């Protein structure tokens, strides 16, 4: 059977599963819609959190980026896992004890201020929208390549699916669908990785395989790869080329950004007890780590296979995958010296091959000659990753509107049923907007995703941490901190990444050599400093707020998540 038929079969089966689960577990109340009724077992919550977190970027792009960046790719590996340590230790248990539905809920109540709540809602909406647009695009790319439909139609199909289960099921539907999606995406990621690890190194465990010797020789795989890189003029694979300070700041911004992302934090409101919130962050990281420790192995294997297959080989003898990807325009060959061979080298003048990093994971099984069903499985896994994250984000968007804006601030008397319909209406609107951006992506999608992390780091994280660990923290400090942290981060991105302000810039102009991706760390430090200074020169928070803080610091009496 060919790849396309396999893709129809496997993607069809997985989608039937998702929709079946959505119907079986649809939400009957706002509480079920927002936090799945607060009764999700921690192991299931851990899997759902992992699927929620691992997006098209983790599944499709990350191993490809590492494959080309070598050591430097570690910023994503450490940044997107280390944040869970911060979440588990500093945020999850306390927010669970606090026991409301959303992050703006916490900010609004802890800082006894609807202004603070509104700032938090705006941050949540901005972060979630930028993220979700990228996911819809990812869905479109996978559909267009494997189902051979137009990319716009790919996005429409994705919208219809997300619409169905996010809008009907709310958090309850999403949680159980995400459990299924986790199983599918991890299976789809591991199968080709194990196959290729055995092919290259005879070791079935990819995490060990990429530190082993190449089958039939005494040379270590990484030494061989460094050798190949040296021959072609690239920096050694295990050393990288970014400056230490930049790697440090980017890693930090990604970690703190992870801990500040509203769609991740809200998952810890869905478990029954504080104890469960702690352990489900642990389970989530185990499930994430399975993919994140495999990805660097996949990256090294793919890099080796790629160089060996194409470098200095004649163009006419390239295998089928090469021309398939040439058709998509994501891989191009230009025979500059007319010798009919592919020169793939670091020197831009002589290099004849350009490869989009995003195709590496999808093309990897084809490059390694794996069976067609494995290739189809990878497509299904990519879709599972993109859809699960999109659904989680859409939920945050609809909750922010129906709960944090309408219910709390505009119409407190609204009935539970009306609020539920409002939440669904907001989800419908959010799917439409996300679909629009998926079809008409701003040409700086990647830049905007970096912005989303930086903004989460520079806005939410300090406000939440100080709200828990510093009783004297008041609303003036929190609002001033969030606003300055956000403002300076947005300014830096607009100036040095998006080029909206002033003359064009280069990396020479960066402050202290920190790239815009890493600037969220600076925004966070500024936020902390401003918050502390301002709160110390203004009045202490009221007694009852200080009592709330005392109360969230120990687990007893948590109970289920409460409405107001």
């Amino acid at each position: 059977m060919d790849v396309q038929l396999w893709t129809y079969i496997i993607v069809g089966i997985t989608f039937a599963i998702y929709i079946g689960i959505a119907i079986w577990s649809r939400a009957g109340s706002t509480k079920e819609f927002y936090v799945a009724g607060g009764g999700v077992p921690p192991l299931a919550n851990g899997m759902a959190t992992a699927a929620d977190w691992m997006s098209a970027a983790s599944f499709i792009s990350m191993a490809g980026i590492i494959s080309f960046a070598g050591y430097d790719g570690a910023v994503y590996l450490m940044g997107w896992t280390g944040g869970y340590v911060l979440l588990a230790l500093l945020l999850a248990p306390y927010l669970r004890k606090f026991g409301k539905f959303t992050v703006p809920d916490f900010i609004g109540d802890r800082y006894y201020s609807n202004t603070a709540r509104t700032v938090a809602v705006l941050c949540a909406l901005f972060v979630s929208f930028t993220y979700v647009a990228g996911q819809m695009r990812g869905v479109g790319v996978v559909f267009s390549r494997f189902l051979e439909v137009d990319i716009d139609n790919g996005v429409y199909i994705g919208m219809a699916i997300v619409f169905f289960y996010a809008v009907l099921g709310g958090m309850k539907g999403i949680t159980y669908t995400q459990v299924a999606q986790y199983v599918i995406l991890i299976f789809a990621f591991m199968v080709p990785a194990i196959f290729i690890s055995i092919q290259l190194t005879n070791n079935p465990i990819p995490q060990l395989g990429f530190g082993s010797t190449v089958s039939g020789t005494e040379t270590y795989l990484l030494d061989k790869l460094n050798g190949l890189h040296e021959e072609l003029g690239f920096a050694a694979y295990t050393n990288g080329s970014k400056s230490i300070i930049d790697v440090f700041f980017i890693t930090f911004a990604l970690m703190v950004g992870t801990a500040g992302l509203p769609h991740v934090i809200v998952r810890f409101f869905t478990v029954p007890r504080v104890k469960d919130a702690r352990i489900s962050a642990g389970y989530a990281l185990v499930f994430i780590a399975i993919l994140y420790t495999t990805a660097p192995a996949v990256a090294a294997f793919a890099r080796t296979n790629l160089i060996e297959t194409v470098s200095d080989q004649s163009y006419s003898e390239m295998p089928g995958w090469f021309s398939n990807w040439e058709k998509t325009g994501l891989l191009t060959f230009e025979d500059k010296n007319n010798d009919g061979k592919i020169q793939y080298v670091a020197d831009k003048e002589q290099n004849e091959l350009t490869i989009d990093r995003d195709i590496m994971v999808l093309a990897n099984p084809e490059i390694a000659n794996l069976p067609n069903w494995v290739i189809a499985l990878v497509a299904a896994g990519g879709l599972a990753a993109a859809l699960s994250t999109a659904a989680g984000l859409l939920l945050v968007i609809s909750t922010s509107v129906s709960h944090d804006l309408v219910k709390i601030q505009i119409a407190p008397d609204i009935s539970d049923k009306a609020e539920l319909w409002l939440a669904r209406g907001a989800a419908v609107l959010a799917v439409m907007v996300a679909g629009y951006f998926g079809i008409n992506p701003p040409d700086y999608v990647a830049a905007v995703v970096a912005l989303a992390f930086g903004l989460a780091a520079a806005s939410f994280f300090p406000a939440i941490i100080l709200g828990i660990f510093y009783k004297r923290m008041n609303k003036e400090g929190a609002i001033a901190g969030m606003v300055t942290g956000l403002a300076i981060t947005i300014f830096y991105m607009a100036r040095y990444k998006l080029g909206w302000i002033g003359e064009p810039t280069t990396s020479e102009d960066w402050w202290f050599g920190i790239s815009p991706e890493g600037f969220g760390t600076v925004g966070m430090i500024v936020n902390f400093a401003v918050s502390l200074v301002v709160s110390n020169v203004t009045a202490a928070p009221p007694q009852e707020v200080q009592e709330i803080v005392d109360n969230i610091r120990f687990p007893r009496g948590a109970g289920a998540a409460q409405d107001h």
Partner: protein
Amino acid sequence: MKLYWKKNIKFLTILLIIWFVVSYVAGILLAGPLNEIKIGGFPLGFWFAQQGSIYVFVALIFIYVSWMNKLDKEFDVDEKE
């Protein structure tokens, strides 16, 4: 209750120091010199950055959970089943 919170902060400090050392010190600041040491085919700094730190992160969360569950019982602030 003050003592409970103080112990909690002590646990957090210990765990976050380890968190910082494996990722930022071993994986980034000292990655260059550590790369001179080889474990199997892995340069050590590279291994910490792309593998080791992630394993340690997982372990840290589980250690934290077990410490805190014990502490909750000790101070009688745990949740009833």
